[in-house]
């Protein structure tokens, strides 16, 4: 923070002349003001900017070295008890969403805002109302300057104006009362506002990310082929019509593709093939190809067969679709396919069946077995253990699972982020700001033509806000052109330069 002064911002009071109560309120106000302006001064500091930028840079490293968002136990395994406690309490397992990291970004945001409020208006005023008539003496105070004498006065002012114009400068000329003239020339003024545009763009981007974090959401939808799911937080649904993988000739995977249909108000309103890098966009929601797999809790159909226990042989198999009821050929029984898990497991506490994994390690199907019209049993039967379960109670024969057809699903990431467009707007503004800040320089040249004994003295002095090396050459060229075109001779004073 700049240490400008230690004075109280309220200004000097005159304690003797006012009564107690008034003095009390004055002091109170001063206290608030003091705090307020102290905070203001804290944020109106460019040292703060540099320190916060560097601090944020350094502490961000933590999040790239420590694995983020892992299960809590894994930190104890990787770093030991003590360090794990530190990492978790400092939220280093979720660095970029931790309160202290957010605070740093917020400080940057306030810092930019305060600095802009403080600096922009005066800058705007001085730059736009710059004095265009001036005393030629100021030229001698510039570090880039040159002077030469001409034997005749005629037309130097016009020459100056012409040369400046040719170099695309804008000019303002003045006649001097005692004869002679001054010409003020400038260009690239707008470059001065590049930094302000950049800062404004940063505020926009920040705003966009804040909007996104409050109003946006992300979810993952594994959609089975031919099924329709409701999109969370939305009033429409999507259906997966097809999923397939493209391969290169070498066998490497080239692309994952899904054909999605948006169903809104009961009608198909939009159909699109999506792949990685090509999302579907509808009503502010985006649907991305994110992964794929086969369903772990559903199948297309199952291949069943009757096992004749007396002859120890298996009948020809038959096919049952999901939810379908089929008669077992040559018997009074029929079956319905009602359940599937890819990796059978049984929870003793809740007495429920679940799948241990998405892999088809221990696939099992559940059937409803009917004798005539009446349901007699609902067994699980296993692909890996044919005949282990007596599927038809009390019968001589059993049902075995001979095979099944899986249903592929396409992993669709759905995302809504209303802040994204604000962020993009900020990025575009930043591009413009950078262009102005880095490639448009504010150049100013002050020139004077004054009658002196035996001729005319021409003086030029220039200033640029950055890139002085380039400017020195341009300045030299301009001076050269003026001298040549006005018929000047060898220079009287030559280019001087202060470092």
């Amino acid at each position: 923070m700049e240490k400008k002064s230690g004075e109280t911002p309220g200004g000097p009071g005159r304690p003797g002349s006012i009564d107690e109560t008034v003095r009390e309120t004055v002091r109170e106000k001063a206290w608030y003001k003091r705090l307020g302006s102290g905070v203001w001064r804290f944020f109106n500091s460019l040292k703060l900017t540099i320190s916060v930028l560097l601090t944020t840079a350094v502490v961000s490293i933590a999040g790239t070295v420590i694995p983020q968002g892992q299960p809590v136990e894994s930190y104890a395994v990787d770093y030991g008890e003590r360090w794990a406690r530190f990492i978790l309490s400092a939220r280093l397992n979720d660095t970029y969403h931790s309160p202290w990291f957010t605070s740093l970004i917020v400080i940057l945001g306030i810092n930019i805002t305060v600095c802009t409020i403080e600096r922009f208006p005066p800058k705007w005023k001085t730059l736009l109302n710059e004095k265009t008539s001036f005393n030629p003496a100021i030229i001698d105070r510039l570090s880039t300057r040159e002077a030469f004498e001409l034997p005749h006065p005629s037309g130097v002012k016009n020459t100056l104006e012409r040369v400046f114009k040719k170099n695309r400068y804008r000019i303002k000329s003045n006649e001097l009362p005692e004869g002679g003239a001054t010409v003020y020339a400038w260009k690239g003024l707008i470059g001065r506002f590049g930094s302000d545009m950049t800062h404004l763009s940063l505020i926009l981007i920040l705003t966009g990310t804040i909007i996104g974090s409050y109003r946006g959401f992300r979810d993952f939808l594994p959609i089975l082929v031919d099924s329709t799911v409701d999109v969370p937080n939305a009033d429409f649904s999507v259906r997966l019509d097809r999923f397939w993988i493209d391969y290169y000739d070498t066998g490497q995977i080239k692309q994952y593709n899904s054909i999605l249909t948006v169903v809104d108000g009961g009608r198909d309103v939009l159909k699109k093939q999506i792949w990685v890098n090509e999302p579907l966009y509808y009503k502010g929601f985006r649907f991305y190809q994110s992964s794929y797999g086969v369903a772990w809790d559903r199948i297309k159909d199952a291949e069943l067969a009757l096992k004749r226990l007396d002859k120890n042989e298996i009948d020809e198999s038959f096919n049952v679709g999901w939810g379908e009821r089929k008669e077992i050929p040559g018997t009074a029984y029929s079956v319905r396919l009602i359940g599937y898990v890819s990796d059978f497991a049984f929870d003793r506490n809740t007495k429920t069946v679940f799948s241990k994994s998405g892999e088809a390690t221990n696939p099992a199907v559940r059937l409803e077995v009917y004798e005539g019209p009446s349901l007699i049993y609902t067994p699980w039967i296993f692909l890996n253990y044919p005949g282990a379960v007596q599927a038809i109670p009390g019968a001589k024969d059993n049902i075995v699972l001979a095979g099944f057809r899986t249903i592929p699903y396409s992993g669709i990431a759905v995302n809504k982020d209303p802040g994204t467009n604000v962020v993009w707007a900020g990025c575009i503004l930043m591009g413009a700001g950078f262009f102005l800040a880095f490639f448009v320089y504010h150049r100013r040249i002050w020139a004077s033509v004054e009658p002196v004994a035996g001729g005319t003295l021409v003086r030029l002095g220039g200033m640029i806000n950055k890139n002085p090396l380039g400017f020195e050459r341009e300045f030299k060229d301009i001076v050269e052109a003026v001298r040549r075109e006005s018929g000047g001779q060898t220079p009287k004073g030559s280019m001087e330069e202060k470092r």
Partner: protein
Amino acid sequence: MTEAKLIMSLMFFTMATAFYLLTALCYMLYWFVKREWVGRAATAFAYIATLSVTMVLVSRAGESGHAPFSNLYESMVLFIWAMTIGYLAMEKRYKTKELGAFVMTIAFLAIVAASLLPYRFKSVEPLNPALQSKWKWMVHLLTPLGVQKYALGWLDFHVFTTFVGYAAFAISFGLSLMFLLREGFELRGIKNLLIDRLPDSRTLDELSYRAIAWGFPFLTVGIVSGAVWANYAWGTYWGWDPKETWSLITWFIYAAYLHARVTRGWRGRRTAYISAIGFLAVIFLYWGVSFILPGLHAYA
């Protein structure tokens, strides 16, 4: 893909290596003897070397059927290409041939390093699903000509701009080192023929800043185009992946550099140190993240 199909790019690569060696030697010689014709020869060789690396990139694109920015080897070649072009532009504008001795030596070492990379970083692979992001308008434009497979996309734009940024930062870093060297001699009043032939310390300082003034916008465009692409591919423009985070770290360091310079009026030594720190971050961003930290970015 087999080596046999890469014959053209390998040939150009060998040629480029040879010409970088020649160029570096010529610039060295120029620095030592300061003869006009040596300097001109050095620049001429530099142009030939640039042409050769350009041809490496072009032939590589022809062989692989996509823009040549898809593995570490290709990215190194791109880096060398951008650095040389940047240097030649600077030489043309500011007449600073003595600096060529340093820049071209670095370029030569870089190209040798690229040739020493293990094969798995060099081979031409078809693009995996996430890397296929061609611009549709360009595909439409090229389809009538039958060359739509060469259409570019966000990946190419992202890598290209990022690497131009890296190259500018590398030049700035070199200039900062030279500044520190030269200023050291100036401050202690030591005369040294070779050091005195370098541009004066103020020029070195200014040029180092100029390089950053180019590198910073390019890095920014690189980061932003990466965000645009990520928004297509992963559904979010920012994911705090190590590469992303390190690019932000680097960006902040150079932003601090600019503010120190523009708002606090820092010049010379102190800004040279920030530039050096910034380049260390760039190196980590380029190599460190790829080899040390796990993440979604395949190589660069």
